């Protein structure tokens, strides 16, 4: 039973995480995209009337279907999980999973490009495994920077400083020397 519960909890967390991120843009995006495709159709109509007339209609259809499917999936997940999971547990567990499932702060292609751009010898190459490891290294670096900035802010508040809950450049300035020494 415990593994099942854990699995359902993870599922609810994934669902609850998905919800707030994906639901708000949908109503806004769907009409915007259709209007954009309609504009494209108008622009394209001047060049190729027959082809452009068929394309937008296909795009609209696929967009609507896909968004409906996603909505249905979300709804189904919620329906399955609601009777199984306790109300407070997802709320409590909601914080750790995002930290694990969050994507790398620096996308792999961007990091690869940055690394290659900064080689002095353009013939230098790097193994794929090594590149992945560098990705992990930079991910830890960014996470650590954020964690230390957060801590710095909390210490500032405790010291009696006025806090509006904003991370400031000064926080980063204080932590940067030690951070760079540690990496």
């Amino acid at each position: 039973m415990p593994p099942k519960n854990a699995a359902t909890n993870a599922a609810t967390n994934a669902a609850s995480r998905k919800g707030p991120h994906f639901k708000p843009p949908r109503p806004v995006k769907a009409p915007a995209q259709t209007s954009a495709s309609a504009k494209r159709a108008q622009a394209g109509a001047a060049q190729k009337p027959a082809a452009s007339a068929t394309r937008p209609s296909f795009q609209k259809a696929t967009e609507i279907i896909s968004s409906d499917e996603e909505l249905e999936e979300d709804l189904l997940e919620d329906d399955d999980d609601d009777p199984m999971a306790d109300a407070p547990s997802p709320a409590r567990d909601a914080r750790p999973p995002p930290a694990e499932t969050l994507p790398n702060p620096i996308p792999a292609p961007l990091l690869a490009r940055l690394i290659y751009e900064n080689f002095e010898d353009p013939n230098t190459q790097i193994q794929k495994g090594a590149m992945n490891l560098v990705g992990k290294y930079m991910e830890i670096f960014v996470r650590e920077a954020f964690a230390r900035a957060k801590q710095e802010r909390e210490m500032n508040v405790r010291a009696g400083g006025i806090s509006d809950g904003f991370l400031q450049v000064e926080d980063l300035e204080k932590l940067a020397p030690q951070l760079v020494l540690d990496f």
Partner: protein
Amino acid sequence: MASNDAADKEERLKSALWYSIGQYIDEECLTSDLNATPQFIGALTELVYTQIANTARDLEVFSKHGGRKVINTDDVMLLTRRNDALETMLKQELDRMKAAEGRGEGQAVAGAPAKKRGRPAGKGKAKA
């Protein structure tokens, strides 16, 4: 003109990095009841960019020192020589990656002979 292009390219890369880091920080801020000023994200971008540049140059020199032209994982592990906790974390990641790689290779090897066996049989039937 060439230096102008290089500076332009650097600016574009920094913009891309700014965007990625901004997204990440915003995401993290949502979960921790905080906010970050745009200046903070900009400064962090500058810090991360410099760190990446330093890392790239370090890795290049490490592999050259080892008499190699291709940077491998040992060079990356050498980056962590002054931080034991970081070394442990990257070692775990490396082991995890190696384990995943080994599993992938095992499947590929297992799948290859099956295909080879299948093809001659198909040819034989076609000829007959």
